[in-house]
């Protein structure tokens, strides 16, 4: 069986600045991988590069989803193949209702899977069911995309979209940043509910605390655009205790 996400020697830059310096990582179905690292280590860049954000240039290496090369695909085509990015800072789109937006999103993805477009009524039922995953009222689907959402609502809204789109590989870029303990529990519970043997998750985080609720199979430490150490959950606790300095390469 193919791994769901296979990243090999990935290098990327923004303008002249090199940010990723050879990331290699394999994620199999059913696995949750956490990537931890200090600010500026390239975690969000990795997420954006995988999703195809045109602001980043891939200079070397490759990445594939279920055996299919991602690098030549447009961002929307990556999404349609089951790649989902939960944004660290979800953008506002004034005047566009969440339910309209999510249906505009789900239908091309369903089409790619060979399924029929979903009608308005069926979609409404789907939303009513999925808002429970993140403990929100379905009224939020009538609000404009992220407009006037609190920080916590924005993060939950990302998980709601993940619940509706049912991606194969979810890249969660700091889904815990700025959350209080209650919101963190809800987001973590959503991630756990959506976990299955057919999908996998790449969870990017700065802090260990979300890993108290979402148990990763692997933890990777990223420093200066490279994964410098991999291990199990205990590695995260190690970071919590001793910080990231211990992983910094020592000058030769």
């Amino acid at each position, binding site marked *: 069986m193919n791994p769901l996400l296979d990243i090999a020697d990935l290098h990327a830059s923004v303008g002249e600045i090199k940010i990723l310096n050879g990331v290699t990582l394999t994620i199999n179905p059913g696995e949750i991988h956490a990537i931890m690292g200090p600010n500026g280590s390239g975690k969000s860049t990795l997420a954006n590069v995988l*999703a195809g954000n*045109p602001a980043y240039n891939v200079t070397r290496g490759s990445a594939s989803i279920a055996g299919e090369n991602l690098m030549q695909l*447009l961002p*929307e085509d990556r*999404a349609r193949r089951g790649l989902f990015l939960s944004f660290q800072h979800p953008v506002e*789109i*004034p005047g566009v209702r969440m339910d309209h937006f999510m249906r505009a999103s789900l239908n*091309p993805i369903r089409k790619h899977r060979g399924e029929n477009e979903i009608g308005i009524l069926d979609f409404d039922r789907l939303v009513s069911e999925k808002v429970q995953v993140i403990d929100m009222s379905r009224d939020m689907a009538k609000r404009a995309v992220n407009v006037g959402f609190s920080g916590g609502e924005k993060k939950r809204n990302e998980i709601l979209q993940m619940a509706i789109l049912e991606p194969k590989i979810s890249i969660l870029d700091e889904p815990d940043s700025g959350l209080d303990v209650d919101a963190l529990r809800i987001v973590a519970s959503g991630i756990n509910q959506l976990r299955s043997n057919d999908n996998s998750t790449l969870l990017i985080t700065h802090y260990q605390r979300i890993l108290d609720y979402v148990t990763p199979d692997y933890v990777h430490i990223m420093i200066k655009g490279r994964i410098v150490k991999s291990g199990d959950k205990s590695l995260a606790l190690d970071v919590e205790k001793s910080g990231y300095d211990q992983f910094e390469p020592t000058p030769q």
Partner: protein
Amino acid sequence: MATQNKYVKDVANQEYKYGFVTDIEEEQAPRGLTEDTIRWISAKKSEPEFMLKWRLKAFEYFTSLVNEEQLPDWANIKHPPIDFQDMYYYAAPKKKVTLDNLDEVDPEILKTYEKLGIPLEEQKMLSGVAVDAIFDSVSIATTFKASLAEQGIIFCSFSEAVLEHPDLIQEYLGSVVPYTDNFYAALNAAVFTDGSFCYIPPGVRCPLELTTYFRINAQDTGQFERTLIIADRDSYVSYLEGCSAPMRDTNQLHAAVVELVTLDNAEIKYSTIQNWYPGDENGKGGIYNFVTKRGKCQGRNSKISWTQVETGSAITWKYPSVLLIGDDSIGEFYSVALCKGFQQADTGTKMTHIGKNTRSTIIAKGISAGYGQNTYRGLVKIMPNATNSWNFTQCDSLLIGDECGAHTTPYVEVRNSSSHLEHEAFTSRVSEDQLFYCNQRGISIEDAHSLIINGFCREVFSQLPMEFAVEATRLLELNLEGTVG
């Protein structure tokens, strides 16, 4: 970003889908504008004496403005001088038509409207919509006239109204937009050839959406029509105009006048979907749309609401306005103006509060793409006696690409201290972040643009009658559609 640049380029170069020419013989007035042209038009229409007199007075005033070079120059638009002697002021299909029998309308013309999506056979029409079809200078057909007449509603061409209802015309013609109002209003009053007329009697709620569809076909011909709508006390009407023109590399002038009057407790809802030919990708050709639209809330507690979706024309110069005379009357202006390619729009509204407790709402959305230049120009004027009046203004601009422009010029003039005004404005860009967010959710770049733009326009589209809201959304999408490849 490569994808967006490509998209923006496509948007700027989007093809115009209504640019065909109908090949029929037309009768034209001699080229140029003299007193004889006006007499010729008036005679052609067998008009009563009062009409000819009014036209000639208007022409005299227009001539004085031309001689004194009093052309309007305050708008944020640029165009070469217009040679008023180098165009035709009247063009009409040669085949004689009687207005009530479609069998006698040239089949080519029926086909034209069919192609534009406005079939004139009543059984084929959108249910609940009556249409007056104006082809160049004359009205071709008015549908559902008979069934409307049963309720006392008059809906007919302007020419017919002049002959059949001269009292109403004499009372109201020029009562909202006098021929001295401005340069193009003077020109229109002198040479207008047709248009729509509508009268809703007291207490009647018009059961159909009334529509006028304007089509320019003949070359080098200006279209000058006048619309007059009167809503008598306690009545209601919703009215919509649409328009299109062939693609030509010369500019054509469209200088219309619309006058609305509401008496006590009456309401007129006037919607426009303007899709005149905007010119080619180099800015060659297209319609100069210089239009004066004004409503008069004459009665107490009456309401006039303008909604416009302006997607076409090389230049749009229009300010649908409301004179709030009756106490407690309400004026509204909802606008979406799109400028792409080399289009220019200078549009907005004037709300003049004269009566007490009068209220007005202005929501203007400007979208600029390509090299388009979009200006919102508005005036809210509150007179000393208009105590406890209220205005809310919101003018927002959305920019697509780096070469376009958005400008806002809101004027406010308040002459009492009990009135309340609010003003909001923002300018935004379709951001790379928004596009990427949509793309990441599986939404293509085109769909993402139309989603974001429709969201931007939502408050205005929601004011349109249902059938037309769908049409407006589609039109905007067509205008912004890009080809991927």
